[in-house]
């Protein structure tokens, strides 16, 4: 059916709601990328099979929905039983008949499948009581995990396209713009430029033809929020783009999505096809007279193509290289025409902003950073996954209350925010409220919302080196400071971690960093020194230790670190089994010894030791002992 008027859309909404509510129970199986990798597809199929076998689909009007990512990837595959919102974690297909028998039919909760809170050791029954979820406020991710992303009706039942209908039926393009301005929303891709200002500047540009683009080229190591939005609720992105296009008077849109996100590409394609068929995209949307359509452009996986001008060149079929942006892309963007490019999360929030009003969005967050922000919480935390929180939430709250604290309760060392362009925030800034300004002041940035938590077993020189290596690979090579500077900086870091560091290396790094920040062509090069400078700012002594004492204080850099077993060893043999070079010897229940010549300093023994009786020491100390 094609929706040809606002009344018809309202009728469609009502129909969708009735269908949704007619189901006595719903089984939501997370089929996000993380859960799929853990076998979620087999779980969903097992549910469908079990229900059909028992004839429950007609009897109880039971539905199984394969949803997008619930965010709690650490515990996947996840299954939620509605309406109670019982959350089962790590579900295997063989448990499915049991779940259907006991929980779905009998209403009984299976204790063993519930989430166990690591701090209280309590089993928690429902979704909303789990700290990981209870502390979240979801706007951009409002429907992810609740709906089947491949079912338009399911999305509409949960509010999709309500914002678009409101805009088209009762608001002028300028009123839409005003509403977005009231919301105070800023770009969720990292730079945090005001959405409304960007739109206004594009609207003011001369010309009749203009474009709205969606940046789905998320490529930061450890970031996956855009991926989950595109996979789990593609309609939210389409709706946002349609509203933006209406405000700007644009009729064409492109979504640039990495080809490494195959599920995102498929779900977006399906969503576009369904929305077109229903008259929610294409000509004369909802009979309003407004035309807008979206195409997908698949990126080849170059990190730099997430940079706006490189992205536009890539869509136009050219090499993905940035250009100088002294003339903004809002005036001269894709095909040299006025263009608005926003991040996936930015677009996903627009529908909710229009439906609920800008003031609602602005009521959340801090003075200059409004609303909520999605983060990919990864690294050494207990609960890794995807979260959305009001701006201004403290890092401590995110890491300890939502993330559940550090793995094995080790000491926290730093959190890396903003991907390779961001920086490391140390422990003394744990109470920092997370917003654009505060992170920048701390020498990091919001970036794409990646948060990599690091414990005391992390060498900050090594961390900076990791991001440098990533950027050296991903620099496009157009401008000298980025191409040659990164390469030379990496060479210095290679020397540092291998014990070849020299007096003056830090100063050399700083000189290069200054040249790159000032002289690089695009933001990739300009922000590339951030991980370097922030680690230098907060962990300078670690650098000095690498250079002067030829020691890695965290015991990570292999060339500088030796391992030895202390008196606490109870001879359990755990380390001898994991040692890849058989460097550990000792009789059972007796003190073990590491052969330093055979040891490759991989740290596997230290990680597995149950009695924490393996310690690291600088290799130079070993040499000194031999002399003595």
């Amino acid at each position, binding site marked *: 059916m094609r929706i040809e008027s606002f009344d018809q859309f309202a009728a469609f909404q009502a129909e969708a709601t009735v269908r949704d509510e007619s189901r006595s129970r719903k089984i939501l199986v997370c089929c996000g990328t993380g859960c799929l990798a853990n076998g979620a597809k087999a779980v969903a199929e097992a549910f469908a099979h079990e229900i059909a076998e028992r004839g429950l689909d007609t009897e109880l009007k039971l539905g199984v929905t394969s949803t997008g990512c619930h965010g709690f990837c650490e515990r996947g595959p996840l299954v939620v039983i509605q309406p109670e919102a019982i959350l089962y974690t790590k579900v295997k297909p063989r448990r499915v008949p049991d779940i259907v028998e006991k929980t779905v039919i009998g209403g009984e909760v299976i204790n063993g499948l519930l989430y166990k809170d690591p701090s209280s050791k309590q089993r928690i029954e429902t979704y909303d009581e789990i700290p990981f979820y209870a502390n979240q406020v979801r706007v951009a991710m409002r429907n992810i995990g609740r709906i089947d992303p491949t079912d338009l009706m399911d999305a509409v039942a949960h509010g999709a396209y309500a914002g678009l209908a409101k805009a088209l039926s009762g608001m002028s393009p300028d009123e839409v713009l005003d509403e977005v301005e009231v919301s105070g929303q800023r770009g969720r891709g990292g730079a945090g430029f005001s959405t409304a200002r960007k739109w206004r500047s594009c609207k003011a540009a001369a010309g009749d033809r203009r474009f709205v683009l969606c940046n789905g080229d998320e490529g930061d190591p450890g970031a996956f929020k855009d991926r989950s939005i595109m996979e789990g609720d593609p309609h939210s992105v389409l709706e946002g783009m349609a509203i933006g296009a209406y405000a700007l008077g644009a009729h064409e849109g492109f979504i640039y999505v990495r080809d490494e996100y195959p599920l995102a590409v498929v779900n977006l394609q399906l969503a576009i096809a369904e929305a077109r068929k229903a008259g929610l995209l294409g000509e004369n949307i909802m009979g309003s007279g407004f035309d807008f359509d979206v195409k997908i452009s698949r990126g080849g996986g170059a990190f730099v193509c997430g940079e706006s001008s490189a992205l536009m060149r890539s869509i136009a079929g050219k090499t993905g290289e940035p250009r100088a942006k002294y003339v903004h892309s809002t005036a001269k963007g894709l095909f040299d025409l006025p263009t608005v490019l926003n991040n996936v999360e930015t677009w996903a929030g627009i529908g909710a902003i229009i439906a609920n009003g800008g003031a609602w969005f602005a009521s959340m967050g801090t003075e200059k950073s409004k609303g909520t922000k999605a983060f990919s919480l990864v690294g050494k935390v207990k609960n890794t996954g995807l979260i959305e929180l009001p701006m201004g939430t403290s890092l401590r709250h995110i890491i300890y209350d939502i993330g559940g604290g550090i793995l094995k309760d080790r000491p926290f060392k730093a959190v890396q925010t903003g991907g390779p362009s961001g920086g490391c925030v140390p422990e003394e800034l744990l109470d920092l409220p997370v917003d654009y300004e505060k992170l920048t002041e701390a020498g990091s940035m919001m970036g794409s919302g990646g948060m990599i938590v690091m414990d005391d077993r992390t060498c900050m020189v090594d961390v900076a080196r990791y991001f440098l290596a990533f950027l050296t690979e991903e620099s496009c*090579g157009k*401008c000298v400071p980025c191409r040659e500077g990164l390469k030379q900086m990496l060479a210095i870091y290679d020397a540092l971690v291998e014990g070849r560091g020299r007096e003056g290396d830090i100063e050399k790094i700083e000189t290069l960093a200054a040249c790159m920040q000032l002289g*690089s062509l695009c933001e990739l090069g300009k922000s590339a020194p951030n991980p370097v400078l922030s680690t230098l700012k907060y962990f300078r002594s670690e650098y000095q230790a690498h250079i002067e004492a030829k020691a890695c204080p965290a015991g990570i850099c292999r060339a500088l670190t030796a391992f030895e077993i202390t008196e606490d060893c109870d001879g359990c043999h755990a380390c001898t089994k994991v040692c890849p070079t058989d460097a550990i010897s000792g009789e059972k229940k007796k003190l073990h010894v590491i052969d330093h010549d055979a040891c490759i300093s991989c740290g596997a023994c230290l990680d597995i030791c149950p009695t924490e009786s393996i310690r690291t020491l600088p290799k130079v100390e070993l040499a000194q002992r031999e002399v003595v």
Partner: protein
Amino acid sequence: MPTLTVNGRKVTVDADASLLEACRKAGADVPTLCNFDGLEPWGGCRMCVVDMSLASWDDDWFKMVTSCNHPVEEGMTVVTDSERVLATRRVVLDLLLARCPDTPLIQQLAREHGIEATSYERNPEPTDCILCGLCTRVCDHIGISAISSVGRGWGREIAPPFNEPPPDCVGCLACAEICPTGHITFTTSSLSRTIWGKDFEMLRDEKTGEAVITRAQAEHFAKRSGVPASYFEKSDRSKRRELAKTFEKLQVLK
């Protein structure tokens, strides 16, 4: 026509002039490596950076920009030799010298900026290619696009497709002639020419016997211009002779 202040000197330029043109008109010495007057500015070498302040900004607020591709504006203030501009240029040259330690042009420019030897790790495989992109841009500009940059980052290089003799190359030598360091090599004689591993037949002037251009280039010019290919087969000397004869005839008629 906007008026700017460059290093304290007032200069008026066309509205569509670049900042680099304005600087040069004011007599400022702004070095460039990837800029060429007939081609679109590219902004890759970063040698032409200057400090710039718009009339509407605070007096002491300057932004560092590349002058080659920055538009001019009324009331702009430009400083081409501030400390950070010179420092940036020095690091850029230091880096280029590490990449191209044996390249005379880079050695000379580096020396002019006070660098005798690079502070960084010398390229174990020295090259003369500074990746200024002039060759690929001139090739694009004349409508051939036979070569392009391949790879990215440190692995970036200029190459024909699949590193094979480029099918679209017409052997015009524009790339080799524009190359500031002489990195692109070729051989040419009155009979044949080889560049990028591709061999070309030379067209020879019927009367003088001089080699003119490659057959492929003549065909490309004919296709682009609509002028018959035979026009390009004549050497300049032949053309002048013909012209002279025409003039002779004109005099006779008088």
